[in-house]
């Protein structure tokens, strides 16, 4: 290579073609990596152990999904009615009930969607650490007149199951009729709040 040619290569910046080629490689690598992660995370057939390992990457990035299980593999078969009995330290008793969903308007259901999700997840928890805090909140909410109302209160959270009859038992209950709840009640938790 002549001195003039060498000097020309030293001073000329890298051609834009190289930059766009590197960019293309980076974009393709990103796409390929994302597709692999997506397939493992979303497809129900992917191994659970692998899916759990991937959470280390996906959760911090805010893009963890898991398989999409709305009404799958089968829909829930149980309606639930939730209520609570609160006994305060001054001996007064209060009752609280979750809304009767059937009696709520479409607008009330829309605005109250997060409350519905909360109750739904609450009942599904086993020995959930959230029960105590929810009970404290409930005790305070029901007695705004009493300072530190949760202190010394006992909260019994009770629910009733309304199973949907198996589909092979005919005639079916019409969608216009309310669900039938079992006569007995189940105690979800008794929280003695200090």
């Amino acid at each position, binding site marked *: 290579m002549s001195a003039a040619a060498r000097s020309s290569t030293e001073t000329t910046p890298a051609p834009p073609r190289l930059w766009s080629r590197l960019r293309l490689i980076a974009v*393709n690598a990103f796409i390929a990596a994302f597709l692999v992660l997506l397939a493992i995370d979303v497809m*129900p057939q992917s191994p659970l152990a692998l899916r759990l390992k991937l959470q280390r990457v996906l959760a911090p990035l805010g893009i963890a999904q898991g398989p999409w299980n709305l*009404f799958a593999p*089968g829909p829930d078969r149980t309606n*639930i009615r939730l209520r609570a009995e609160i006994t305060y330290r001054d001996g007064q008793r209060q009752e609280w009930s979750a809304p009767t*969903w059937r009696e709520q308007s479409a607008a009330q259901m829309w605005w109250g969607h997060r409350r519905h999700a909360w109750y739904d997840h609450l009942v599904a928890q086993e020995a959930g650490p959230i029960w105590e805090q929810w009970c404290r909140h409930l005790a305070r909410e029901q007695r705004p007149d009493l300072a530190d109302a949760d202190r010394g209160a006992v909260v019994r959270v009770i629910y009733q199951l309304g199973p949907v009859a198996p589909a092979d038992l005919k005639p079916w209950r019409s*969608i216009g009729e309310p669900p039938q709840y079992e006569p007995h009640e189940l105690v979800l938790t008794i929280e003695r709040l200090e």
Partner: protein
Amino acid sequence: MSQADCSLRDTAAALGRGWNAFFHAPCDARVCALVRIAFACVVLANFAALWPDRERWFTDAGVLTAETSQRIASPYGWSLLWLLPSTTEVVNVCLWIAVANTVLLLIGLLPRLNALCVLVWLYSFQTRNVQIIDGEDTVMRMTAFFLIWMPSGQCWSLHALLRRWLGFPPLGCEAPGWSLRLLQIQMASILLSTALLKLAGDEWIDGTALYYVSRLDDFWGRFPVPAWLFDTPWTVALMTWAVLVVELTVPVLIWFKETRRWCLLVTVLFHLANEWTMHLFLFHWIMLVGWLSFLTAGDLAWFTGKSQRGAAA
């Protein structure tokens, strides 16, 4: 041609060409802008619904202290709200900043940066209280993630307007299409994932799944539907299987130009029917936002042509 005639190099080259044609063909930037605008509207509705109960869900005076929320969240998750005092004032400020980022995304000012901010806020609020989140929250996060990479500010945005005012040449309607493709793949994956899971459930195979769904009081009965439709076993079976057919075929057929529009029409009807009958908050709306990514320049011309004719009439 015998099998031995297949060259590994030719096959790899053909795959490479296919990959480039699929991911790197330019897209119509107006479609990206449409996704951006619709997404921001849904996220604003989400924040509006959170606002009245913000103290209940996100402060230590509510149902879940920050400490417990860290115990029940993913061990790899994080939330900006965990770094800040868990008070109403702090949550108010965070929500207002999140709303500001969403509005900036809506009007298209620094859309990539604001999409990133919206993702951070959505994730922070969701991780602060994982007990109140549902499918729509995941779709919102994913869409925000794709918008970070999408050229959504090229059209119908304050960014484009400012460029024009400042005398820069207009960016035009053509943009790199790979990020829009990723959103399309995401949408098809959601449908396929749920369909494959449903195939493992007896109720979807024997045609009774919608019998059970329609008797769940907390989900069902948003607006009136003819009772006989869900009280008659054969109509319930037909509708149940129709759901499976839609969820299995749309993720495949939507990629072909001959069937794309039909798939989009069926998908829109499917989501609107679900929205009519069930209380699923913003799930179907954010899904419809995602399906917008399958629109093309031809569809937009068709819509605008129709609307111009409508206006002229």
